[in-house]
C-alpha cells in the first residue's frame, strides 16, 4: 500500500507498540497480560509494518529464519527450565524452592515465571509473524 499518511503514522507508532508489547511480556506476573498477549502485540507491530510499508522490509527487520529458530529455541528454554528442578531432585517444572524469588511485586519475583513468560512471548511473536509472511506470500503467487 502506498499511502503516505498511513506509512508515516505506522512508522511513528511502531516503537510505541513494541515497547508496550515488551512491557506486557515483562510484567506478565505483576499486571494483566503475559507471554501470549504480549507476544501477539509484538507480532502485530511487525505485521502492521508489513501491511502498510513493505513486506520485504518487514522481513528485513525480523528475518524468517531467525523467527523459526527463536520459535524452536523458546520451547527448549521452557523444557530446560523445567529440567533444572528435576536435576535438583524435585518434580518437573517445580518453581518456588528451586529458583530465587525476591520480594513480592518486584520484577524478578516469582522464580522462573519471568523467563518462561519471555520465552512464550518470543515464541508467540515469531509464530504470528511466520504465519503471516507465509500466508501473504501464498496469496501473492
Amino acid at each position, binding site marked *: 500500500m502506498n499511502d503516505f499518511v498511513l506509512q508515516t503514522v505506522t512508522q511513528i507508532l511502531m516503537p510505541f507498540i513494541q515497547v508496550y508489547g515488551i512491557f506486557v511480556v515483562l510484567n*506478565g*506476573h*505483576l*499486571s*494483566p497480560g*503475559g*507471554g501470549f498477549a504480549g507476544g501477539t502485540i509484538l507480532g502485530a507491530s511487525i505485521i502492521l509494518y508489513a501491511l502498510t510499508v513493505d513486506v520485504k522490509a518487514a522481513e528485513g527487520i525480523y528475518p*524468517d*529464519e531467525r523467527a*523459526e529458530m527463536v*520459535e*524452536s529455541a*523458546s*520451547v527448549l528454554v*521452557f*523444557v530446560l527450565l*523445567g529440567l533444572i528442578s528435576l536435576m535438583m531432585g524435585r518434580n*518437573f*517444572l517445580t*518453581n*518456588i524452592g528451586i529458583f530465587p*524469588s525476591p520480594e*513480592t*511485586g518486584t520484577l524478578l*519475583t*516469582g*522464580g522462573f*515465571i519471568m523467563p*518462561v*513468560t519471555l*520465552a*512464550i512471548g518470543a*515464541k*508467540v511473536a515469531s*509464530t504470528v509473524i*511466520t*504465519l503471516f509472511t*507465509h*500466508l501473504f*506470500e*501464498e496469496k501473492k*503467487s
Partner: protein
Amino acid sequence: MIRRIVATIMILLLGTVLLYMTSEMPRFGDPANPTNNELSARYMEDVIEDVNIPNIVTAIITDYRAYDTLGEATVLFAAIASVLAVLAMHSDSGRGTKLDE
C-alpha cells in the same frame, strides 16, 4: 425445497435441545456455583505463599499448570511446523529444495 424443510426442522430440534440444556446450567452469580468451590478459594488465599506473585492468572498458567502451558507451546510449534510443511512447497522464498511438479 424438501431439503430446506428437513434442515429447518433439524436446526429447530437441535436448538430446542440446546436451550433445554442451558436451563439446567447454574444461575449466574450464585454463591453455590461449582466455580466458587474450595479450589479457587485456595488459589486466591495461597498464591503469594506458593508462587510469590500478585497475578493469580499468570501464577496458574505458568506455575500450577506449567505442564499444561508446555503442551500449549508444543501445540503452537506443531501448528507452525505443519503450516510451513504445507506452504513452503508453494512459496518462492521457501528455503531448501522445492518439490518437483
